């Protein structure tokens, strides 16, 4: 198992203070989290194909380091909000595989009682505010969560994730202006996986040669660009933004370069048409963040190949158990349809009892 005195890593950014402070156990935990996300999604994919899961399933496979690395930096007053490719962030904030898997199966035991599905996971108790299906729609909400933290006088921030395609939504630009104008502690993380559905980044965005995040300059905002393969680099880069948010209450945009191994969603029939097989293979073989971290930890003497296999096996078993849990769970009762629409109705308050709230039948 892990040796206590890990070798000094030669990997860039390993010597950043935020990474120096990682214990061997912390590093293994980061690996475990990424593997758990991957095994969760691989299992969900299997059940999507056998018809147990409906709708869209946007897999995060290949991007795990982004959520795990950035969320590993957060504390009590920090918040997370993202788009529809949300399974990784959900598990990284500590949501359980069971409720996440059951949500995919549309079961009553799902994190949203089967009302949200794959794209709409929520866990306010873990400062996780979704899971949003409209491209870019979550970006003003991210500013709002940061506003709330600041209004209450807390030292915290909001990590708001979005795709490289989402940066072209108007709401995002409005949110950027507000974030900088009002000095909100929000960090926009552009997960640049190179494509928005079948449209390459080059075909969707006009941007300066420095990258997508450089648009921040127009809003007098700090920005950064990070290679997302390495957890060390992500943690070192995002930490600077977290400090900026905590200490100076200033926003940041960070572009993190990453890649999705699978199609846009499982329903993406063209996953291998708008990008070449060679390109996909190249990223899977040479830029996979889990492989990279595993090799880093082996080189540091933190884990052995066997340790890795054990973690992988455990995560696979956990995912299978979650699928079992989901399969065995009941579907929501039909009576649930009219719950969770109005707080006042759910809580049977006087306001909830005044007037007709629903108009069917």
């Amino acid at each position, binding site marked *: 198992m892990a040796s206590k005195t890990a070798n000094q890593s030669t990997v860039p950014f390993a010597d950043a203070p935020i990474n120096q402070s990682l214990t061997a156990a912390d590093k293994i935990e980061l690996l475990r989290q990424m593997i758990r996300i991957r095994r969760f999604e691989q299992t969900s994919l299997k059940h999507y194909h056998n018809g147990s899961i409906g709708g869209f399933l946007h897999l995060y496979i290949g991007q795990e380091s982004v959520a795990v690395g950035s969320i590993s930096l957060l504390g009590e007053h920090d918040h997370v909000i993202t788009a529809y490719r949300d399974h990784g962030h959900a598990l990284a904030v500590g949501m359980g595989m069971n409720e996440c898997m059951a949500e995919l199966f549309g079961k009553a035991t799902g994190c949203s009682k089967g*009302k949200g599905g794959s794209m709409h996971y929520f866990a*306010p108790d873990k400062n996780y505010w979704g899971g949003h299906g*409209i491209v870019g*729609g979550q970006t*003003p909400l991210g500013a*709002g969560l940061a506003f*709330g933290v600041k209004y209450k006088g807390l030292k915290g921030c909001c990590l708001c994730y979005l795709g490289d395609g989402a940066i072209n939504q108007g709401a995002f630009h409005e949110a950027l202006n507000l974030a900088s104008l009002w000095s909100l502690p929000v960090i926009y993380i552009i997960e640049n996986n190179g494509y928005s559905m079948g449209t390459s980044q080059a075909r969707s965005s006009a941007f300066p040669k420095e990258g997508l995040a450089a648009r921040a300059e127009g809003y007098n905002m700090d920005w950064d660009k990070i290679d997302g393969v390495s957890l060390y680099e992500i943690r070192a880069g995002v930490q600077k933004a977290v400090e900026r948010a905590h200490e100076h209450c200033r926003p940041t945009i960070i572009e993190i370069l990453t890649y999705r191994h699978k199609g846009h969603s499982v329903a993406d029939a063209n996953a291998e048409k708008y990008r070449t097989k060679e390109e996909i293979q190249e990223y899977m073989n040479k830029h996979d963040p889990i492989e990279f971290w595993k090799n880093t930890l082996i080189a540091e003497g933190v884990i052995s190949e066997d340790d890795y296999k054990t973690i992988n096996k455990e995560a696979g078993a956990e995912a299978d158990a979650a699928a079992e849990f989901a399969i065995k769970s009941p579907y929501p009762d039909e009576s649930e349809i009219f719950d969770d629409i*109005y707080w*006042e109705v759910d809580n049977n308050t006087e306001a909830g009892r005044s007037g*007709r709230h629903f108009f069917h039948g």
Partner: protein
Amino acid sequence: MPREITYREALREGLDEELAYDDNVIIIGEEVAEYNGAYKVTEGLWKKWGDKRIIDAPISEAGFIGMGIGASMLGIRPVMELMFFSFAYVAFDQMMNNAATCRYMSGGLINVPIVVRGPANGGTNVGATHSHTPENIFANMPGLKVVTPSDAHDAKGLIKSAIRDNDPVYFMESTVLYGMTGTVPSNDEIEGGELLVPIGKAKVKREGSDLTLIAHGRAVVTCLAAAEILAEKHHINAEVLDLRSIRPLDEEAIMASVRKTHRAICVEENKPFCGVGAQISSMIMEQAFDDLDAPVLRITSADAPAFYSPPIEKLQLPNPDEIVARALSIC
């Protein structure tokens, strides 16, 4: 002592009292602070409450309403002013998707206690882009509440209830009503010490026996004028029912009145297609068919974008003479 104050002043009092009642209440909007409000509804509030509570926003309705939704998830209670409700359409995704569905999609883990308020009316010669009446559009969406005060009393009592409500409330006012005065009790005359009008309870503004005029917002004022003409010139005693909110809707009050008068006309400044009156007339048909002595009629704005030319725009909106003529056709 009962006081005569304007609808605008009544709103301002309501806002001011809620700012005092709860530290988490904030006001965000274009020109709401230093300029004192485009329609002076928020006049003096910035001076009294300062930058933290009264916030001038850039012209970014999607941005600041979306921001308010996010902040409300952490317990802030933002009251966001739309300079005109017509501008809601640039924030439509935030108002329809995020405000209305986050609660449902989170299985009830989240609620969004926001208020979006502003004038939603035509009739002021500002052309089609500034004259929208979207109460039917927003009331179509489960999860949202739509409130439409027609007088100063309700403007104050309803804005206070809207701010305390734990669901998103879209509060539609009228620039035509802002300057109208009405009787609003002072707090020392009220049991409980404050004026809270519950959302979801209609009000009979004029008792009648021959016909029910069902209206909301400024159309209530139009109906009251029509009812006077009907009484004086035609000996028809019309009841005027002010819905006060579209969703939730006081169905019991509607049916009770129709069962009493046996005739109903729905009057609104909305457009006709799937307007509020379409919903209500279908409900009356289903629930009170045997009580009806005549078909339920609907009077709406003309089914056209708002006309700029002042004398013509007037013809587009419901007016007392039109209501009288239609009433005579069924009485």
